[in-house]
């Protein structure tokens, strides 16, 4: 199981993450954050398609996405 958390107040709605998403499941929502930007989301029914590649998190200029990947206990620390 992977998990993607959007820090909505940091999002500027640039949509760069929608393009690099391996499964193209990130889309623009209809919500605005306090800064006035239309934030992105993954629809609950699409979340299971996420493979936790982390590309959305890597590309986000505003560090607004945290991607958690489930790993076996023994795997080395993330570098």
């Amino acid at each position, binding site marked *: 199981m992977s998990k993607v958390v959007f820090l909505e107040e940091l999002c500027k709605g640039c949509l760069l993450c929608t393009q690099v998403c391996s499964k193209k499941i990130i889309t623009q929502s209809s919500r605005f954050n306090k800064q006035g930007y239309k934030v992105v989301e993954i629809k609950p029914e699409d979340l299971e398609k996420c493979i936790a590649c982390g590309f959305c998190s890597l590309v986000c200029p505003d560090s607004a996405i945290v991607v958690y990947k*489930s790993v076996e206990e023994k795997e080395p620390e993330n570098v």
Partner: protein
Amino acid sequence: MTEKIMFPKPQVLANRPTHYCPGCHHGLAHKLVAQVLEELKLPEKTICVGSIGCSVFIYNYLLLDTIEAPHGRAPAVATGVKRARPDKFVFTYQGDGDLAAIGLAEIMHCANRGERVSVVFVNNTIYGMTGGQMAPTTLVGQKTTTCPGGRCKDREGEPFKMAEIIGSLGGTAYAARTALNDIKNIQKTKKAIKLAFRAQLEDKGFGFVEILSSCPTNWKMTPLQANERIAKEMIPYFPLGEFKNTLGE
């Protein structure tokens, strides 16, 4: 089973929203610089030299000791800092208006002297902060507020290829050009930043990385269209790759 965070946010990157426009590559470039600093265990011994341009507030976003240099003078300030404190890791972060226009003399001499400093050069082919004027790196035909009909080769000359120019100087140990338009290029950019930093750490000479970046606001495009422009218009004129590497890798 445990959970790991993919590409976790570096600790030296401050927890605050940036003033950058949506999709601006400065935020991404800051993040890569922060990641490399942490991987090389440098934050505690780093002195960052900021420049004038949209990245002028870099000290708000990278939690490092920082000096703000006058427009274009970051390589001269970095020279003084490094010579006074050779134990410190010193890098500048500069835009193309800052580095290739008003600061052209400073960058050339700093590289030529082989100062043990590193330079992160964000080339977005325009003056971002002041509202989109022509820079020495503006592409032929590109429209800006000071060349509304498009840059003209006969009138303004061709854009400077800074990575090649810096790579041709004797004091340079590492010079490369990368881009931030896709995942592969983002990862290559991180590697190049690391090598530009190692040139200093290993006392080889001057380290330089030119990063082709977007300014969606002044290009009057969406961030996704801006990425396409980097691929279709910028990279063909500004080839990616290393122009000097004396690090043996």
